[in-house]
């Protein structure tokens, strides 16, 4: 007779145990992660105005696309009223791009002498803008390798002066 309450308690506890351990429905909880990004109406290229300032110029391509595509557009761009490029025209617009988190490595089909210092910034800013819009950090650095250039330039890590 005395065993009954013990048994009942044991069964109750066991039932609670099994019942309390399934996956229960929950309310809505927000997750700390940043939401995904990467859509855009077009590519942002960096050109130079008459006062030698870098200016973003969005091309309505309909999508953000890749860094390779953005740089190809930049190398192929022609001067416009009030905006110009300080990179010499070239028929080869294909840039080798390697991206790891925090670092973009570029191999451009030009020599260092094919562009001004602002022209180098044009390339750096366009590359950084394309990865930042796709969700990368604004602190990403760029390593540009020219077809021929002083050794010091080959190793330097550059940042864009207008993207901070």
């Amino acid at each position, binding site marked *: 007779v005395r*065993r009954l309450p013990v048994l009942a308690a044991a069964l109750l506890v066991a039932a609670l145990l099994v019942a309390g351990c399934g996956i229960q429905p929950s309310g809505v909880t927000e997750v700390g992660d940043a939401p*995904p990004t990467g*859509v855009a109406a077009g590519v942002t290229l960096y050109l130079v105005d008459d006062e030698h300032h870098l200016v973003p110029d969005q091309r309505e391509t309909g999508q953000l*696309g890749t860094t390779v595509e953005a740089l190809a557009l930049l190398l192929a761009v022609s001067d416009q009223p009030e905006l110009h490029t300080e990179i010499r025209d070239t028929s080869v617009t294909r840039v080798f791009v390697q991206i790891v988190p925090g670092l973009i490595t570029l191999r451009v089909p030009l020599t260092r002498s094919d562009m001004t210092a602002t022209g180098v910034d044009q390339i750096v800013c366009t590359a950084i803008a394309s990865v930042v*819009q796709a969700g990368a950090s604004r602190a990403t650095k760029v390593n540009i390798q020219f077809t021929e250039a002083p050794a010091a330039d080959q190793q330097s890590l550059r940042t864009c002066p207008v993207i901070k």
Partner: protein
Amino acid sequence: VTRRLRPRTGLRLRLLAAFLLVTVLAVAGTAWSSARSATASLVAAAQQQLTDAVTVQVEALAPNVRYPPDQDALDRLRAAVGPGALVTYRNLRSADGAGAGLVTDAVRAAVRTRGRVAVQRVAAGGNPWLLIGTPLMITPPAGAPRPSGIEVYAVRDLSAVQMQIQKVVWSGVRTAGLAVLVAVLVSVVAASSVLRPLSGLRDHARRLAAGDLEARAEPRGADELAYLAVTFNQMAASLQASITTMQRMETDAKRFAADVAHELRTPLSTLTAVVEVLSLAAGDMEADVRESVQLAVTEVQRLVRLIEDLMEVSRFDAGTAELRLEDVDTSRAVQDCLHARGWADLVDFTASGSATSRLDRRRLDVIVANLVGNAVRHGRPPVGVHVEVTPESVRVEVTDDGPGVPERVLPHVFERFYKNDPARTRTPGSGLGLSIALANARLHGGDITAANRPGGGASFVLRLPQGREGS
């Protein structure tokens, strides 16, 4: 025979139950809390992994999605997220079958208004599901991200996690069961170690109760139970000592009474002879001297009767009284008794049945003489004696028409020297008559009962059973 209590099971069950209860509670509590934390971390890990997978998939495809998107762009995005997905942009919507229907308004509201990744667990079709909702952002090169208006929802099945949790829980339950089993074994051993000395003590107490004053327990160890056994032994020893003392005192008192009676017999017979001589010479004496002599004679006769009664009682006490059974015509024996004492005229004698009985004739005479003598002395005539003999028993009823026996006295009438009225000590009887009558009846295996008749007067009924030899 006293009712035997249910042996041991009560205490053993209680000990076992207490042990079991404590173990079950402890094990269940531990298992429950660990299973809960395991569940929580499993679910959290699964949620994190599924959510990360969705955002990574979306982010990988986003640069190739046209913006503002058309239906085709939404379909491609939805396909990239996998089965059970819903992608919306303003009025456009790309849904994939069953899972998309589970997306709740609560999640959509959280994604739309807060612009954050939101998750919710729901149950559907008996399975747990995880709803993941996220807005797709536009991040300008310079400036804060803003919602693009594209929202991606994914529905993921959590059944696999559920099964993993159940495995954890069942292994916990199995472990708990084993622990309880071990606890039962341990508690059985522990209970036995407590109950074995107890049952030994109970056996000794039972022997003591049955009259074996030599019963002693053997204390083992140095715990409370051993102390109990020692105390029990002390109790038994002091009980034995006091009972022995009482028995010795009682024996001494009885022997003293017997010795006194015996020692008084010789001088008393001399005294009787002297008194008889005196009474013969009384005729020549002065009147007042003669009266004194008569008084002396009466008192000496009473003293002789008292001594004889005392000796009779001593024989009963010493256990030396013997039954001498013979075939007796009961009604004739009673009549003889009445005639011998000169009561034939005072008594209404009736009898029914006249078979002979196996009785001790002398003792029957003593009983009847005492009962009738008592009625003649204390009651009023007519005294009635009715004898009824059946093959099973002899019944002799003695009645009188006196005031009866007071209710207060009735339970004590058979006690030795019991006096109804303490002031009236000088009655002709010795005060032992009814007690001797009862002792004789009991020797036959019979009994005497005293009662008052409804119409007044006392009634003493003697019953002697037949068909048994001695007692």
